[in-house]
């Protein structure tokens, strides 16, 4: 039998925690190995009041439940996927050749703060140049939200390795399917759908559409995004959707091709409430 310290080191090396921080539920999974095999998973609904505090409380409950089942989680690496409703995405047109990275960062932050209507410096902003060098894709989250999340994970003894948006995670997983000249990609969840329009593999516009919505509603929202850009909405377009299946009563637009949603979307066994 291995000494406890060695077991702990091995566990830190081979296991990690993945958290899906949604708007209606929080899911915490314990994964093992390089293939990220699911060992245990717990979902916790966010209380009636909802909001950030309710979500943080649900996260704490889910972490406690997983610790009760899987043992001490302290020291394990943790990857967090934030639902898109917590995040602001935008595409900002900046010429890579004319603007320094520092100036571009300031401009992107100012743009996102303007879009969100918040005080300067209140958002944590991350961005990257697009493939054509003529714009950036950016995401932002309130610093207060990020701070509370970090505090919750620190209290559980987890080591934060990654915190990113669900759209980014799904986009990276599905981007090999976006080979058409014009692609509309949407990630639909309970709170709404994050829609992006890609032209020649570059994200040209993005918008968050509130509400669950059906594919007809998504098509209408996507047409609105394209029209705002001045694009021809009748031009050939590939529509790709990552969303849970609709019920039979929802209006359906057959142009949408569905991709399989990531595993964190599916609810796990509910954690017992204390």
């Amino acid at each position, binding site marked *: 039998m291995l000494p406890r310290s060695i077991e702990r080191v091995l566990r830190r090396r081979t296991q990690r925690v993945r958290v899906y921080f949604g708007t209606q539920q929080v899911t915490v999974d314990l994964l093992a190995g390089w293939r990220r095999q699911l060992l245990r998973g717990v979902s916790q609904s966010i209380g009636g009041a909802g909001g950030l505090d309710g979500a943080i409380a649900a996260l704490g409950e889910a972490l406690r439940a997983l610790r009760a089942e899987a043992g001490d989680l302290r020291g394990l690496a943790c990857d967090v996927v934030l639902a898109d409703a917590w995040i602001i995405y935008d595409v900002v047109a900046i010429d890579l050749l004319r603007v320094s990275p520092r100036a571009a960062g300031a401009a992107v932050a100012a743009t996102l703060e303007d879009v969100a209507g918040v005080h300067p410096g209140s958002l944590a902003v*991350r961005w990257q140049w697009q493939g054509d060098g003529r714009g950036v894709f950016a*995401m932002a989250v309130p610093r207060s939200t990020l701070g509370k999340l970090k505090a919750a994970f620190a209290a559980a003894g987890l080591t934060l*390795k990654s*915190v990113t948006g669900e759209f980014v995670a799904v986009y990276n997983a599905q*981007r090999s399917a976006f*080979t058409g000249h014009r692609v509309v990609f949407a990630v639909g969840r309970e709170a709404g759908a994050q829609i992006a329009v*890609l032209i*020649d*593999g570059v*994200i040209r516009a993005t918008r968050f559409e509130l509400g669950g919505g059906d594919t007809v509603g998504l098509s209408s929202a996507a047409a609105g995004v394209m029209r705002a850009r001045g694009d021809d909405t009748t031009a050939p377009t590939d529509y790709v959707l990552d969303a849970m299946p609709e019920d039979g009563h929802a209006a359906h637009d057959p142009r949408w091709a569905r991709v399989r949603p990531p595993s964190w979307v599916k609810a796990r066994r509910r954690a017992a409430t204390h």
Partner: protein
Amino acid sequence: MVPQRLVIDFVAPPAPAGFGRALLALAALAVVAGGAQFAIAWHAYRQEKAELVSVMQRGAVPVVDSARRSASNAAGLQSAGTVARGLTAPWPDLLQSIETIRNKDVALQIIEPIAARQSVRITADARHFAAMLEYLEQLQGRALSDVVLTSHQVQVQQPGAPIRFQVQAKWGGGAVTPSPAASAASPTQASNADPARGPR
């Protein structure tokens, strides 16, 4: 065209770009290849050194297995041999010996040494046949062996209609007489030369 990967994260540092990763992989590959090359070269160096030490201890030239000698080595050796023969040929003495032949009716045009065959090809213009034959005799008596008149032609279109002739001769085998003085000092060398065969 597959869209680029989004590498934005609120806590993780940005991942190195694809180009950087590729460059890193190439650099690692180059280091490995360089290491392998060095190991091979070091092994060969040690082997050669050991062989050299062994040869020096025996005081003899090693017998190189012809099967082991690569084609490039053989070509290199052949090339080196050609260069060595060229360098060891007594050009100054040979040219001086030919140029000191006094014949007012013959004008020397071209001297083409052929080091590989230890011979020389001489092209000259003679005013008349007698001068040409006299020149051949002078060559044979002075410096060269196996003096052969290979061709001759009357240049009717040139003023005076000179005879353009070519001579081939060997300078090896001790036939070269460095200078008239040396030639006079060693008449046996001149007497070894064959008589000229005359025009064909």
